[in-house]
C-alpha cells in the first residue's frame, strides 16, 4: 500500500515539474500570488444615474510571474486575474447598485537591475475588462455592462531588504491603459434597441488617452515566515473614460492580504528553492 502511495506521489510531482521549463536540471519557477481584500469603491455611470455611488466590496487577485526563458533573466511574463464584487449606494441611500468586475491580463516585462537589491521592470500588458452594474429600481436601463480590451503600460519596482532573519520584498506596481477598444451605450438608447434589435451603432469606441485615462497601482510587502510567505498590499485604482457624451469613473481603494509562493513547493525562509530553480526575481 505504502509503495502505491509513493508511486502516485512521484507521478504527481513529475507532472507538476513537467509544466516547468528545464534545461540541464535548471528549472524556471512560476511565482504565484493570491490575495484577497476589502475595497471601498466609488462608481459613476451616467447611463444608469447621474449620481456617484459609494460602497464596499470584496476583491481577489491571482497573479503569476515567470521568466520567459531559462537562459535569459531579462524578460518575464505576467498573467493576472482580478475579481471584484461590491454593493454601492447613492448619496441619499435610496437606491443600490450591484457591481461585479473581472479583469484578465497577460504581459511581458523587461528587467533592469540598477542595484543589487533593486529591480525595475517595464513592459506592457494586454487585458480584457468586464464590469456589470445593476441598479434594480431603474426602468429599461437597469443594467450597464463595461466591456473593454486594453493595452497597458506596466511597471514594477522590487526592492529586497535583508533583515537579520528574513529577506523582505517591497514591490510597487503600476499600470495605465494607453490604447484599446470599449463598449459604451449611448445615453438615450435602451438595451431593447441595442440587444433585441441589435442596433449597436456608436456603442463601440477605440480608446486612447484622449478618452480613457487611469492608473492602478499596488504597494505590497512580502514577509517570509517559516513555511509560507505572506503579502500585505495596498491598492489604488482610478479610471475615467468618456464616450457618447458620458463620463464614467471608477475609484477603488483596497487592502489586500495573501500568500506568494514558487510553484511547486518552495516558500518561506526555511524552504528556499535550490539554485537550479529560478524564479522571476532572479
Amino acid at each position: 500500500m505504502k509503495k502505491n502511495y509513493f508511486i502516485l506521489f512521484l507521478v504527481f510531482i513529475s507532472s507538476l515539474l513537467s509544466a516547468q521549463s528545464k534545461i540541464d536540471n535548471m528549472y524556471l519557477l512560476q511565482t504565484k500570488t493570491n490575495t484577497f481584500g476589502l475595497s471601498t469603491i466609488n462608481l459613476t455611470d451616467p447611463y444608469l444615474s447621474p449620481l456617484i455611488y459609494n460602497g464596499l466590496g470584496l476583491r481577489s487577485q491571482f497573479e503569476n510571474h515567470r521568466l520567459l526563458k531559462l537562459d535569459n533573466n531579462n524578460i518575464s511574463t505576467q498573467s493576472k486575474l482580478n475579481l471584484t464584487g461590491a454593493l454601492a449606494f447613492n448619496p441619499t441611500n435610496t437606491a443600490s447598485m450591484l457591481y461585479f468586475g473581472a479583469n484578465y491580463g497577460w504581459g511581458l516585462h523587461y528587467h533592469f537591475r540598477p542595484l543589487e537589491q533593486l529591480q525595475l521592470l517595464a513592459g506592457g500588458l494586454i487585458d480584457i475588462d468586464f464590469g456589470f452594474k445593476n441598479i434594480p429600481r431603474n426602468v429599461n436601463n437597469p443594467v450597464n455592462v463595461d466591456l473593454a480590451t486594453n493595452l497597458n503600460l506596466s511597471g514594477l519596482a522590487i526592492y529586497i531588504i535583508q533583515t537579520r532573519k528574513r529577506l523582505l520584498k517591497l514591490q510597487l506596481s503600476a499600470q495605465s491603459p494607453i490604447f484599446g477598444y470599449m463598449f459604451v451605450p449611448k445615453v438615450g438608447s435602451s438595451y431593447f434597441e441595442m440587444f433585441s434589435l441589435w442596433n449597436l451603432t456608436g456603442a463601440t469606441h477605440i480608446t486612447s488617452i484622449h478618452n480613457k485615462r487611469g492608473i492602478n497601482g499596488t504597494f505590497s510587502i512580502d514577509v517570509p515566515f517559516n513555511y509560507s510567505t505572506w503579502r500585505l498590499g495596498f491598492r489604488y485604482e482610478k479610471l475615467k473614460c468618456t464616450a457618447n457624451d458620458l463620463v464614467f469613473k471608477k475609484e477603488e481603494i483596497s487592502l489586500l492580504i495573501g500568500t506568494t509562493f514558487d510553484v511547486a513547493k518552495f516558500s518561506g525562509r526555511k524552504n528556499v528553492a535550490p539554485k537550479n530553480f529560478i524564479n522571476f526575481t532572479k
Partner: protein
Amino acid sequence: MDEEPQQPNSNKGNFEALWKIIDNQYCYLDYKNINWDSIHSVYNSKITDSIDEYAFFDLMGSMLSELKDGHVNLYTNFDRSRYWKWFSDYPTNFSSKLIYSSRYLGDNYRIAGGFRYLKIDNDSIGYMYYGSFSTGFSDSNMRYMLSYFSKCKGLIIDVRDNGGGSLDYSEQLASYFFVNDTVTGYIQHKTGTGHSDFSKPTEIKTTAHKTLQWQRSVIVLTNRMSYSATNDFVNRMNHAPNCIVVGDKTGGGGGLPLSSELPNGWLVRFSACPMYNSAMENTEWGIEPDVNVQLTTGDEDKGIDTIIEKAISLIKK
C-alpha cells in the same frame, strides 16, 4: 473629458436637475409642442428652499404632468407622481365583472402563464384575457392554448386594461399570428440635447414563430387602458394577417421609458425613445381600432360585453 457639474441637494438644485433631465432626454417635447423653457420660468418662480418635501414633490409632479405622458413618474419613498388622464378622461369600456361572468370566463376558466382562457359561445370561439405584459408565458403555454382552441372558428385576445410591461412578451405574443417576418414599426433614441436630436429610425420586426402559427381569425380587444407594451402589441397585430382590432382607441404610451435620479435620490421615469408604426407615425397618443365599439350600459346591465359580442359576430361572419 469634462463632466457636467452636479446640482446641490436643495429644492432649487433638485428642480434644476429634474428640468434638465427632461430638457435633454425626454423625447416628445417638440412633438407635443411643449415650451419647456417657459415651464422652467413658471415653476422656478414657485420654488424656494423653504417649502417642505411634500409641497416640493407636488410642484415637481405638477411640472411633469405638463408632459401629458403616462410614462412620466416621479418616485419617492412617500409618493409617486402620475398622469392618468390618458384613460381617466375616457369611457372604461371594460368590466372585469362581465368577463368573469358565466357568459364568458365564468369560474372554471383555465390559466396558462399570464393568460386566463376558455372556449365561449358554445365552444365555437377561443377567448384569452391577458391582463399584463409583465406576466410571462412560454411557447409551451401557447402550444397548449392554441391546441385547446384548435376546433374554434377564431380567437379573441382581450388586452383591455392591460397597462403594458415587457416589449419582449409583446413581440413573442404577436409572433404566433404572423406567417412572415414583417417590419411593424421603428424606434429612435435621443442623440443630443436638442429636442429633435434623434438617431436614424431602427426597424422593429415582428418575427413569425417557426413552429406555432395561428392562421385563422384573431380579434384583439382594446380600450384606453391598453397602454405601453400593449400599445406596441396592438401596433404589431395591425400587420398580422387575419387580425382585426376591435374596441376603443388604445391609450398610447409609444415612448420607451428610461429613468434617472435627482440629487435627493428621487427616481424619475420618462419617455426617451419614440416608437412609430410602419408608416413612421407616432404611436404616443394611441392606435385607432379597425372597428370602434363602445361598451354600452344597456348591454352591461344585461351581462353582455358589447365589445366581445362584436368580436364574436365578426369571427362568425
